[in-house]
């Protein structure tokens, strides 16, 4: 570890804090239906959409109608994308002449982008046409992000309102999220990326002769525009297979900063929006503080583990001062790779600028564990907010009783119904992650895809299902995931992680919205204090840790211990 490394990390998180308030405030105004500075320009467009589709913007929906609209919209998106991938050969903008995507891969990919996961079982530059990337994947990058934001706002309204029957209108929230937030920001960030040297073209790949005289194919395409929404929408699916480790997706330190900051931007700002809308900004900051605590500690652990290096490498003659540089880009170094790894997994973005599978055991444990905690640190756009609120509900329920009152969060009593739904949502993670991992660990057809043996092989499996269920999408590397078994089971994991989580969460929102808002008193457990931040962090850590500790012990933990002992497989 170096001082410069730490300064880079400090500057990064410092900058991340700057955008929270203005962006959060803007979104609060937007979703409360107030005028924003973009209204004069975009208002007519917005109303035009409603007129075209017959949406009545003033008509709000109850939780069930909201959930059904969300599901219907996403089902339509899935079918469209699936058809597009299967019919790729007949569609325009296919300069490389790629054929149809195989059914299992098309299913996996369509699910992956609709669920905001962006697990990529395919190699982008060798499988998908520009049309599939732009009209298929990029569109879903916008819409899945907007879906998450709509859900988060609906949940926010449950706390902001008292004795209310409705949560808002899904179509309106979706439209506003896309039109006023994602689209303008994506344009700005895409232009910035172009300025930083990312390609933006509809041409085919270039074949060039290198200095050594060899032939090399340079993959080209509309990279900058996809990169922008990939990060803003916390999607993470790169245009290129190597994702943000590739120089065309992430050429330098500035683009790396912009990548990480765009991931953090909207999802953290939504916590401020939450605070603003429920009338308690400190609550928003309390959540942000919890998140930053995890991200900074996580970054620190990865940074420490990677710079401490691998004694096995040292034994082979690698300079111990270098630490473990395996799987990292020299232009980013360990500090910025560590920060990227922590943020991309904390956020459920899933883009990578280094290969997590090449980290040390401990270094690889952090990203995996961050995903297993659910989408809370700060999770995907929107999904992070409601994921965090589910944990907050758990925290006040367990510990809130200790102040001698029945549990309440922001004036809403947490009772049997909420607890039932919250447990239903929380169950999804261990069910899909551990269930599929254990099955795969026993199935020969699944084991054939492994590249590592011993604990590392188990980590590959565990990471894949973790990444899919947590709707993250990052890969550990090593696992050949483009097989019918993995395409199908990972696809199911993604669906469960997204919708089997979101529906109970919306039901909680409906139930909370209907409750009267109880006035706080000196006897109320305040949830916007440092004490609560500590408690929330402990609950996240303990509840998450207890579920996955045995599995992690057999994967990354034992791998790290064996590595230190110089043992390989």
């Amino acid at each position, binding site marked *: 570890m170096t001082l410069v490394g730490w300064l880079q990390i400090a500057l990064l998180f410092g900058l991340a804090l700057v955008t929270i308030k203005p962006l959060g405030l803007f979104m609060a105004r937007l979703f409360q239906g107030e005028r924003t500075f973009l209204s004069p320009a975009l208002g007519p467009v917005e109303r035009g959409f409603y007129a075209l589709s017959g949406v009545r913007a003033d008509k709000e929906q109850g939780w069930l109608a909201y959930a059904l609209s969300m599901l219907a919209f996403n089902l339509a998106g899935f079918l469209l994308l699936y058809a597009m991938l299967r019919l790729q050969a007949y569609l325009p903008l296919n300069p490389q002449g790629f054929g149809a995507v195989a059914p299992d891969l098309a299913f996996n990919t369509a699910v992956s982008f609709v669920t905001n996961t962006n697990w990529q079982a395919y190699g982008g530059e060798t499988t998908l046409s520009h049309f599939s990337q732009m009209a298929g994947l990029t569109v879903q990058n916008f819409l899945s992000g907007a879906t998450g934001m709509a859900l988060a706002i609906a949940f926010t309204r449950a706390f902001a309102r008292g004795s209310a029957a409705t949560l808002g209108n899904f179509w309106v929230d979706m439209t506003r999220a896309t039109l006023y937030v994602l689209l303008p920001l994506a344009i700005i960030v895409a232009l910035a990326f172009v300025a930083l040297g990312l390609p933006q073209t509809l041409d085919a790949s270039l074949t060039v002769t290198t200095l050594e005289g060899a032939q090399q194919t340079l993959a080209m395409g509309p990279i900058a525009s996809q990169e922008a929404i990939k990060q803003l929408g916390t999607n993470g699916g790169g245009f290129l297979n190597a994702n943000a480790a590739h120089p065309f997706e992430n050429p330098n330190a500035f683009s790396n900063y912009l990548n990480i900051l765009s991931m953090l931007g909207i999802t953290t700002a939504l916590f401020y929006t939450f605070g603003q809308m429920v009338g308690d900004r400190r609550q928003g900051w309390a959540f942000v503080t919890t998140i930053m605590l995890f991200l900074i500690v996580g970054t620190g652990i990865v940074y420490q583990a990677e710079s401490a290096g691998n004694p096995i490498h040292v034994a082979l003659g690698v300079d111990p001062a270098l630490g473990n540089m395996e799987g990292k880009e020299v232009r980013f170094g360990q500090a910025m790779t560590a920060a990227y790894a922590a943020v991309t997994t904390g956020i459920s973005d899933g883009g990578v600028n280094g290969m997590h599978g090449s980290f040390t055991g401990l270094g690889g444990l952090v990203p995996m564990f961050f995903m297993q905690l659910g989408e809370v640190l700060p999770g995907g756009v929107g999904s992070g907010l409601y994921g965090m609120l589910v944990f907050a509900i758990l925290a006040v329920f367990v*510990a809130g009783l*200790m102040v001698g009152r029945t549990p309440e969060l922001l004036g809403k009593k947490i009772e*049997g119904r909420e607890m039932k739904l919250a447990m239903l949502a929380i169950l999804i993670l261990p069910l899909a992650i*551990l269930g599929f991992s254990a099955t795969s660990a026993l199935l020969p057809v699944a084991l054939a895809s492994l590249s590592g043996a011993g604990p590392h092989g188990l980590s590959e499996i565990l990471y894949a299902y973790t990444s899919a269920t947590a709707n993250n999408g990052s890969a550990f590397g090593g696992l050949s995931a483009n097989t019918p078994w993995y395409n199908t089971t990972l696809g199911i994991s993604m669906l469960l992680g997204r919708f089997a989580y979101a529906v109970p969460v919306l039901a909680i929102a409906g139930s909370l919205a209907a409750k009267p808002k*109880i006035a706080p008193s000196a006897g109320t457990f305040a949830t916007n*204090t440092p004490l609560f931040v500590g408690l929330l962090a402990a609950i996240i850590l*303990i509840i998450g840790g207890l579920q996955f500790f045995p599995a992690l012990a057999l994967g990354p933990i034992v791998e790290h211990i064996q590595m230190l002992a110089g043992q390989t497989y």
Partner: protein
Amino acid sequence: MKRQTSQLLDRTILVPAIGEALRKLDPRRLYRNPVIFVTEVVAALTTLFFLRDLATNPSGGLFSGQIAAWLWFTVFFATFAESVAEGRGKAQAESLRRAKTDLVAHRVPADGSSLLEAVSASSLKVGDIVVVEAGDLIPGDGEVIEGIASVNESAITGESAPVIREAGGDRSAVTGGTQVLSDAIKVRITVPPGGTFLDRMIALIEGAERQRTPNEIALSILLSGLTLIFLIAVVTLGGLAVYSGTILSVTVLSALLVTLIPTTIGGLLSAIGIAGMDRLVRFNVIAISGRAVEAAGDVDTLLLDKTGTITFGNRMASEFLPVTGVSARELAEASLLASLADETPEGRSIVALARGEFGLPEPGQPEAVVPFAAETRLSGVDLGGRRLRKGAVDSVLKFSGLSQDEAPHGFRESVEKVARSGGTPLAVTDGERILGVIHLKDVVKPGIKERFAAMRAMGIRTVMVTGDNPLTAAAIASEAGVDDFLAEAKPEDKLAYIRKEQKGGKLIAMCGDGTNDAPALAQADVGVAMQTGTQAAREAANMVDLDSSPTKLIEIVEIGKQLLMTRGALTTFSIANDVAKYFAIIPALFIAAYPGLDALNIMGLGSPNSAILSAVIFNALIIIALIPLALKGVRYRAVGAAALLRRNLTVYGLGGLILPFAGIKIVDLVVNSLHLV
């Protein structure tokens, strides 16, 4: 009942509880408690595997046999905790049941003939009219419709002083099983046999009617969810272990599962609930719904009647204010004489003040005592030609024949001063010579102000309800330190106030006894009726205070909070415990495949088998160790929520994290020294 605070765990309760705990092992009764039910299923499963081990290799069953045994102990300890909690209530119900022997009722026949018919109390119907004479036990709950009698209600309240029951008004309710001491009353039966107050009390105390409260249900959902999560984690671990080159036996997986699922809180949850109700009973409060006990913890506002709760209920003399030309001593002396024969609390307080402040001697016998009369509204004595009178200002002026303006200098000022401060001025005169004014005031109970301050610290507002005028009310309110007051309050005002507060998202507690309190009692989130109150009030309330003490509300709130805190503390403790258990069991399971995992064995446990056994034993013993805490409850302190939480998190959260590391290590040392594995 004035019950002695019996020992928390005495033998008369513990021994029968063992039998009851064994009966509770019946899965048909246990399935209601998912955590312990799962433990029982797992215990049965390990027993089967133990038998198989025994059959295949007689010496191989040692380990699996011990695990199975301790899993059964875990289940047993949980049912035992519940039995002990119930046992304490049973002992109390016994004493009540004695009052409920079958009684004979003297019923007025339906045809209206004057000849009474003797029928069994259990055959009485609602609407029947019975006559109860001196010495008889009242056959059922009802309402006095004719007559007045003194009734001994000690069977219910434990208070031996008889109370007056009379037709009409707020003292008309009588309770079955109580005894008429004098006179005779006609009672209309209002509750069918089996549903009487006494019956319900017995059922409530015994826990037979115990229904799980909303928060308890929510908590058991959380615990079931956690159980399910750990079930997934443990079952899948079997698969992951195979990959890692280890075959885990059902016995060790069962051990891991039971140590992880929240058996501590799962086993103690119902005991906590029963003990909470029981604590109320010890305070002579019967909660008709468990929901109300929880709501008591949430109360934001207490509506307290001034009289009897905040003040002593009668006004007392506090100061002598003589007119110009009269010394304070002279006024005190005259007041003393005028009050000598006055046996009212006010009169006695004047005597006490005069003696205390001026050390006046015992005066001679007066020639004529003039008792208080409604027409004159005066009382006093004639003594040696003096005609000493005291009474309301108007009456005294009338007696002395003076008008307000003719009164001596200083009289009017004193009267106004007293009235302004919320007190009652009492004028004293000797014939035509007005001597001065006695300041009578409501005396606020000592210590009540501190109590309200403590309530404020825990976020509870206190509101005083009084029939006094606003001026008087304000003075007492500020002296007692309540947050708000309701002056010249009529019962409708109470109801309106409660509705208003509830609309603002607040929970309200109040107590009352009159029929006109009933709507407000029903509206309040916690309504406490006095046992001496009317049937209507008792029906409307969700708690009944047998002592009929209005200050009880404060204790009730504290008991409610204590109940919730105990649940939270043990849940936190239970979850925090799991960390240490992982560090005990996970390295033990995989040390053969991955020797490096010994690095996680931070407790340095003797062997894999002893580590697993120790964790299971610790997990079982902790239930027993925490039974006293579950029954007694976590101590409540009237500090703010933040301070309370910080303290409890440190004790039960951090403590729960650290304690099992030490505990498991100690058990492991014992297990190894006894060569149990």
